[in-house]
């Protein structure tokens, strides 16, 4: 399926996952349950947007066709995006957004931690910067999961429902395909399958504390190879609106 060089693809996966989740989190601006959360979700999105910019700028350099971070963000179609499917899932209620963030941040932090050891100096530098930020994401999502899961009957039910809704997209996070394998053997990429036990342990600990059940449902998803749910198209219509309607428009 992938014909482009593995490093370009690999860097797009990292950048696109950050970009699409940043856009999802930005949707909460002005709508979060309390002011502090409005600000918090915006901040989480901003961190991811910053990481996305670094990754996508680098992807453009690897490709060598003169595409900038903006070209890659605003002028590609859904099938050219390489984000994991988890991040394009709708926000749902606050519980579902927190569940998605728990599963993602718990994984992304491990990925960035390992990526700091990458033989690719640029990826290692972006990861070194990002891993310090994502530690706050994990903590924030985990604390909310526990507070809501072990909260009232209503908050517990909604947290569990949100978790069930997004859980099926997690196997994709650990599945190694050709690109992942090529990058791992080059000393550049991360052993995703190898992260699973650590991720399981930290997620299980939070779910236990939150009195939530670990779901077992599995969804076939393959966003990182460009096969997306219909949701991504809707995300892109908002994200790309200005550049699509007014090509080349600048602030």
């Amino acid at each position, binding site marked *: 399926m992938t014909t482009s060089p593995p490093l370009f693809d690999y860097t797009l996966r990292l950048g696109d996952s950050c970009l699409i989740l940043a856009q999802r989190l930005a949707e909460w601006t002005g709508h979060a349950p309390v002011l*502090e959360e409005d600000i918090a979700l915006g901040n989480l999105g*901003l*961190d991811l*947007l910053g990481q996305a910019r670094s990754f996508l700028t680098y992807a453009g350099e690897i490709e060598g066709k003169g595409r900038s971070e903006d070209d890659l963000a605003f002028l590609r179609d859904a099938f050219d995006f390489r984000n994991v499917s988890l991040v394009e899932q709708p926000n749902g209620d606050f519980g579902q957004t927190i569940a998605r963030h728990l599963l993602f941040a718990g994984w992304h932090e491990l990925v960035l931690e390992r990526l700091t050891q990458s033989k690719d100096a640029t990826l*290692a*530098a972006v990861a070194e*910067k990002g891993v310090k930020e994502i530690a706050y994401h994990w903590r924030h999502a985990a604390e909310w999961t526990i507070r809501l899961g072990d909260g009232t009957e209503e908050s517990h039910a909604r947290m569990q429902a949100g978790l069930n809704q997004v859980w099926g997209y997690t196997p994709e996070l650990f599945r190694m395909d050709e690109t992942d394998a090529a990058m791992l053997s080059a000393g550049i990429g991360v052993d995703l399958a190898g992260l699973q036990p650590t991720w399981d342990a930290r997620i299980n600990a*939070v779910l236990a504390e939150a009195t939530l059940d670990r779901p077992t449902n599995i969804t076939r998803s393959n966003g990182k190879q460009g096969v997306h749910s219909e949701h991504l198209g809707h995300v892109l219509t908002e994200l790309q609106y200005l550049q699509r309607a007014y090509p080349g428009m600048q602030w």
Partner: protein
Amino acid sequence: MVTAILHRLDEARIWRVLAEVGDPELPFLSVVDLGIVRSISLDDGVVTITPTYSGCPATEVIGLAIANKLAEAGLDLKVETKLSPAWTTDWITEKGRETLRANGIAPPPAASSDKHALFAEPPVMACPLCGSPDTEQVSAFGATACKAMHRCQSCSEPFEAFKCL
């Protein structure tokens, strides 16, 4: 020998010029005291800076402000951004910490606060207004990426605190 001395003089002058550039979000704090100017290389004609957070929107503005200030001072130097080693709040100078406190923002504690510990007590932030250690964190996220929101139990004032990174 003479060249070496001239270089030292030039470099000291450049640091002085950079000390006049403030962070756009914290205009009272210079980019030098914030610890984001990492090096000056006269041989390469480059000033290297590093962002506080990956997504800090001030980074580009700061780069431009530094370039403008250098040009004003007649110094022909390029400004380059480097991500590694990653910025840490430990690089904020003692003077910078005092400046933050004087402007109502609690300076960050020394690195060590364990961000991984769930429900861990956040480090004690003394109220920058009345000095009381009896404060609580309202939210780990604030008006800019680098700050958290706190409240003083003694004087009841809300205040911002620099997050440990």
